[in-house]
């Protein structure tokens, strides 16, 4: 998979793995309004076969409406929705039903039937499909095994923990062998450890069954853990999308930046409050390094090449999708504009992004 290699070449990542097959889902300029409020505005999004696409946004960003447009529970006011290369706009409720079976769904609050055992919950999509009892039983056993609940088939949801319930939910979503798994905030009601185990299970399923997953969430951590690409939804619009490592390294929209705040180093408050625009003795730069860039002895080379002595104020290097993604806050003497410009030029060649933040004024 491209995303796991160390090379820095966005173009290879944007290419679908198999262009002959239609994407699992294609949204083209989908707009949906509820009265005066616009839930989705010109949303175009493609979900490729076999990928985990993270769709992130705050509550009210339009995530739920987007999901409901995918499985035809909601009709867009304009734009196209294609599932498996087929437009669903003209389909009636009766024609949508078999199509919905191609899309498995898991929910924040699991939505398991309390009156049915785990096994019967998992069997429900198969029952809807019209499978015989014996066939259902065999498939359910297989699925219980897959999600690690082989001994819990006879338990009722009330007897299971949150993580176990979500595993049952996942098994149920996979029962009818869907082309796409929609995960609607599936880990938002779980504690951190359970979240990790559920995300790991989803990733395993994605790899083992080559199942396409749309991971809808407000948690960047979930996206970072298992998604290949991410799309950021804000106010009903997709404000940013790209490979996860790229969005983590160089987020462009304000929404993405704020969603990422907890995951990225930021200038310590003591310095940030004393920051003023323009150059000074203590000019501060934010330098983003990605992949191999993060392994270079950047500061030493900067000193050798342009004779600029930069000190590291703050920063860190993280690994996203197997790539190093780092943000470094450097302090340089900006009193000599020529020298500073040379340093800036050097850094711009060696890093993905360089941002001038201003300079720090001393207290005295």
């Amino acid at each position, binding site marked *: 998979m491209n995303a796991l290699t160390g090379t820095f070449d966005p173009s290879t990542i944007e290419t679908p793995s198999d262009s002959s097959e239609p994407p699992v889902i294609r949204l083209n300029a989908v707009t949906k309004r509820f009265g005066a409020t616009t839930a989705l505005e010109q949303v175009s999004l493609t979900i490729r076969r076999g990928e985990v696409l993270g769709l992130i946004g705050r509550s009210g960003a339009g995530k739920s409406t987007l999901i409901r447009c995918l*499985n035809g*529970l909601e009709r867009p006011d304009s734009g196209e929705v294609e599932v498996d290369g087929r437009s669903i706009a003209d389909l009636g409720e*009766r024609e*949508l*039903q*078999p*199509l*919905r*079976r191609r*899309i498995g*769904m898991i*929910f924040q*609050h699991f*939505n398991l*039937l*309390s*009156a*049915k055992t785990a096994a019967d919950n998992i069997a*429900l*999509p198969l*029952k*809807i*499909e019209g499978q015989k009892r014996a066939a259902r039983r065999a498939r359910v056993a297989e699925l219980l095994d897959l999600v690690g609940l082989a001994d819990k088939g006879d338990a*009722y*949801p*009330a*007897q299971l923990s949150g993580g176990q319930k979500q595993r049952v939910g996942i098994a*149920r979503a996979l029962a*009818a062998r869907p082309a796409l798994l*929609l995960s609607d905030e599936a880990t938002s009601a779980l504690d951190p450890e359970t979240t990790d185990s559920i995300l790991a299970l989803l990733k395993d399923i994605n790899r083992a069954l080559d199942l396409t997953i749309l991971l809808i969430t407000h948690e960047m951590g979930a996206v970072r853990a298992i998604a290949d690409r991410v799309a950021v939804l804000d106010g009903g619009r997709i404000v940013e999308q790209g490979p996860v490592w790229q969005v983590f390294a160089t987020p462009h929209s304000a929404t993405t930046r704020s969603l990422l705040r907890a995951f990225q180093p930021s200038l310590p408050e003591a310095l940030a409050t004393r920051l003023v625009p323009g150059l000074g003795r203590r000019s501060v730069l934010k330098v983003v390094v990605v992949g191999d860039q993060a392994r270079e002895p950047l500061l030493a080379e900067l000193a050798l090449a342009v004779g600029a002595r930069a000190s590291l104020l703050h920063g860190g290097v993280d690994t996203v999708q197997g790539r190093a993604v780092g943000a470094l806050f450097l302090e340089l003497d900006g009193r000599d504009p020529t020298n500073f410009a040379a340093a800036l030029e050097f850094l711009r060649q060696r890093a993905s992004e360089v941002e001038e933040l201003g300079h720090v004024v001393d207290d005295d």
Partner: protein
Amino acid sequence: MSSTMIELLWQSLLETVVMTVAAGGVSLALGLPLGLLLIATDRGGIWEQIALNRVVGAIVNAGRSIPFIILLVAVIPLTRLIVGTSIGVVAAIVPLSIAAIPYYARIAELSFREVDPGLVEAARAMGGNRWTIVSEVLIPEALPGLVAGFTVTLVTLIGASAMAGAVGSGGLGDLAIRYGYQRFETEVMIVVVVVLIALVCALQWVGDWTAMRLDKSGRFGAEP
């Protein structure tokens, strides 16, 4: 108490049970689908039909608002049409049923409303049709509430059947009024009241126990 009195008491008990069970059965058979119709046709329901919902709702409310004693007399022509007579146990079953159908319809509607809409959404997302949603989600999930509500309906019917004495239906209530009240036989009154209390308690206990056994969600206080 004389043996004729005991026989009379037994006879009355049977009459009460027959009226309650028959009217209860009719209210279940017609009130349950009516309750389902009320929730299904409501806004956001699985078969949204607002106009139909308002009409059915109005009819149910009308049925619920008529005092039973008036209903009892008002439906006499209908009773005669259906069962051929307007007096006796069988005749009393008609007005009792007419009162109990809308009563249980509202109770059933409330039970269906208690079902988490997320479960209906999940069944729809799975590609289930309306029948699947009714048979796999609404009824099984609402079942403990439906049973508890049916118990309440039966208890109410036992009370209402006392008034049915006015059309010569017999029953325990009628016995209490005729002997205990009108003939000042306090002993009969006390015995009838005790029997009624025992009957209601037994019914309530069976209803509660069944609802508890059916509930797997933990809401009714039992371990699934």
